[in-house]
């Protein structure tokens, strides 16, 4: 079976600060990395192809530097990968991002299974997977805890809903988003790293897409607009308990006592 894993390059640290005077985001010097949640998806893909045959490819959308995570996925066992990169994709919200990725997937080929991580560490929305599946017209299942079997053109999965765990079969092709901590992702192979060649990573831009209406991509294709950004409001009811450790401990005790918490 042929599997495509959607991955994303995210900032190495999630601590972005705002300059209180200028309102400008302070860029920290920390390098980028692969979204940690995607590693679980890659591991599911690799172990499935080891058991059932087939290949794993990866796809990402981002600046040209995002090639680094495609390289990393190849070192983990993917055959090749694609970077969707174009200035026309800039400023995309969930809707435009999902549409762009779905156009990219159509361009890349046909897959039995598309796997996404649970969410990214920078956007934290966990929404793009379901929207991609809609644009590809295939079923989707999120919060997959395990892939139990693949047979008769179906995939058998265990899914976590809020209060129940469900076992279900899903017709292929389909898209699944896997939960975190469901496996131990393998490490990239140094041996493969030394044999990486440029033709393993393909770059696709707007001009390669079927849908040539620029209004469907990037900021223009986004339904939502960021009206303003601002630092979070600070709590106004603030007390500080000072003194030495003993006085501080007794201060906390008084608060707990007065609120009838002890």
């Amino acid at each position: 079976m042929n599997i495509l894993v959607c991955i994303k390059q995210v900032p190495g640290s999630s601590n972005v600060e705002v300059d209180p005077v200028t309102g400008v985001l302070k860029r920290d010097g920390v390098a980028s990395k692969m979204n940690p949640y995607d590693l679980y998806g890659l591991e599911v893909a690799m172990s499935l192809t080891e058991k059932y045959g087939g290949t794993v490819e990866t796809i990402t959308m981002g600046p040209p530097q995002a090639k680094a995570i495609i390289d990393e996925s190849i070192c983990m066992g993917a055959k090749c990968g694609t970077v969707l990169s174009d200035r026309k994709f800039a400023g995309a919200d969930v809707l435009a991002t999902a549409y762009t990725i779905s156009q990219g997937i159509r361009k890349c080929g046909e897959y039995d299974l598309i796997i996404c991580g649970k969410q990214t560490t920078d956007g934290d929305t966990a929404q793009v997977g379901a929207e991609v599946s809609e644009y590809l017209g295939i079923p989707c299942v999120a919060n997959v805890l395990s892939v139990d079997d693949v047979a008769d053109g179906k995939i058998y999965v265990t899914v976590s809903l809020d209060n129940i765990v469900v076992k279900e079969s899903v017709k292929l092709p389909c898209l699944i988003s896997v939960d975190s901590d469901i496996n131990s992702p393998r490490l990239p192979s140094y041996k493969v790293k030394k044999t990486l060649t440029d033709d393993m990573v393909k770059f696709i831009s707007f001009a390669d897409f079927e849908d040539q209406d620029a209004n469907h991509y990037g900021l223009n294709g986004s339904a939502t607009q960021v009206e303003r950004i601002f630092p979070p409001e600070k709590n106004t009811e603030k007390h500080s308990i000072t003194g030495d450790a003993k006085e501080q401990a007794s201060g906390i005790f008084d608060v707990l006592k007065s609120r009838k918490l002890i």
Partner: protein
Amino acid sequence: MGQLKINQGLVNADNAKELVKICPFGAISYDGAKLDVSSACKMCKICVKKGPAGVMEYVEEEEPKETVDKSLWKGICVYVDHEGENIHRVTYELIGKAKELAAVIKHPVYALIIGKDAAKSAKKLLRYGVDKVYVYEDEALCDFRIEPYTAAFCDFIDKVKPSSIMVGATNLGRQLAPRVAARCRAGLTADCTVLEMKENTDLVQIRPAFGGNIMAQIISPSNRPQFCTVRYKVFAEPKPSDTESGEIVLMNIAKDALASGIEILAKTEKPRDIDISEADIIVAVGRGAKSEQSRAMAKELCDVLGGVMACTRPLVEENVMDAKHQIGLSGRTVKPKLIICLGISGAVQFAAGMKSSDCIIAINSDKNAPIFDVAHYGIVGDVNEIVPMLLEKIKEDAANV
């Protein structure tokens, strides 16, 4: 809508350097002759607003995007999240908020319930002051499967045309809302923490963004409906009224629209785990209290107070604690009577998951830690010194009773 234009004629080595530095996403590069913007650009327009005057320009596109006639879209709809006859409490919280928002623009409040015996559950909602409960009932809707649920949801949107739609950010809602929003080509904002309504029916959605210490205010100015998801325990649950009001509307949808490639084979109840979002008292530990000794102390304090333990994301990532104890945007949202934060710096993702708690006490050795911005009681000091003394004091007190 428009795009960034670089006025290359105005570029010089100095202002190019400034622009490269000002871009928070590293999208601007300068090769000594030409300034370039890469696809890392997020269109935040900081280069236009804060950069050297005139170099970067934002050019509006000539043809404005087609906009909807907002007056055709009326009502605020809450999706009723349920498993069998159990309605998820986030539903009531959202109805409470929907009524506030609807009052601003004098719109009706709707609830939408999809399921096998949905009409039975629909009756419960009539005590919460909704104007209409729309019901889709069918054997094919027995269990949550993405295609038939999306079909029913979209059928409702086509027929009723609600202006705003609120969905609980449960595991189910997080799949259904994006799938429906994509089909409607509508905007969707996840995990909103504040919602407001404009006179022109634009829903103002505020959420922590950029994975950092920043809030983003988001609108969908030219699309309807407008979708948002909200987590459990972000808004307050309204009290049910003694009398029922509102109307139940049974909806029809063609059987063949409910086809699915998914088959449910078995369902099992999850073991009733510790659920930190239900807890009244929480002791939470962060990186500053991750040592075995500190955690043992925290646990003791937690037991004395009759609470549950929770933690920040780094402790989960380092496998020090289990993910189900994690508070924050990628963990649980909590709203306890008391939360004691030990050695937690208080990144916005964490704060977003606990800041509506009734009483927040924070101990941290760094006086500049952002946790002190959300804490009601801030203590700058050493967790390992203060907590044992506090424990001693509580024990003494208990012995004297």
